């Protein structure tokens, strides 16, 4: 699934590790998410969006 997680993460100056820790997942999951190789659950999508101060629609829309 195409998304803008990497773009918003780098804008905030967060590393993948930091984003993963804040969202409660492993770093590999963030890697796969950013590459569009993993479709997250609604809960994880909301968690990532919250950490990046964006809406789910902005991230995945």
């Amino acid at each position, binding site marked *: 699934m195409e998304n803008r997680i990497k773009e918003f993460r780098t804008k905030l100056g967060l590393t993948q590790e930091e984003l*993963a*820790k804040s969202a*409660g*997942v*492993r770093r*590999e*999951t963030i890697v*796969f998410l950013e590459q569009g190789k*993993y479709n*997250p*659950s609604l*809960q*994880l999508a909301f968690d990532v969006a919250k950490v990046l101060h964006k809406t789910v629609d902005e991230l995945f829309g």
Partner: protein
Amino acid sequence: MTAKQFKFAQIISAFVIAIAASQSVATNNFLLLVIVVAVAAPILFWVRSQVKEVMADERDYAIGGIAARWAIQVYSFAAVIGMVALYSQRSINPFYEAIASTLAYSTCFLMILYTLIFRYHQRLKFLADKTAYAAVGILLIIVLIIAGIRLFSGEDDWICQGGQWIKHGNPSFPAPQVECRK
């Protein structure tokens, strides 16, 4: 503690348990294995509780589900083929029948267990009625009791008497290879 250190602790525990298991079999002292497992399990649980980072997330659980399903399917398929092959060759070596029976029973048990757990998570988990949980628990206990009675009842077994292995009932496997000392 980091996840890496925990994995290292897991590997060390596995080595220690494997050594204890081999020693137990070699010396016929299974108390050693029980003690080692009884000590190792709480230590591992404690070490696990000290890990602050995320060990597994939703992606791991999803992959784990797929891997478990594949593992069950591959094992069941291989076990059935092995069972048929061994049963057909039991005239060559009587031990083949015992191995085939083990494969057959373990496959059935695995499939029943998988079905029960799957059904539990598919439907019963969402029910507010606690009797459904109790029903699954009771069913599982009944299955285990039946399996236990069948396996440990002593019917159709070899009995050690007067320094010789004597048939009791009609065991489907040959007499044990260990020396009979009663």
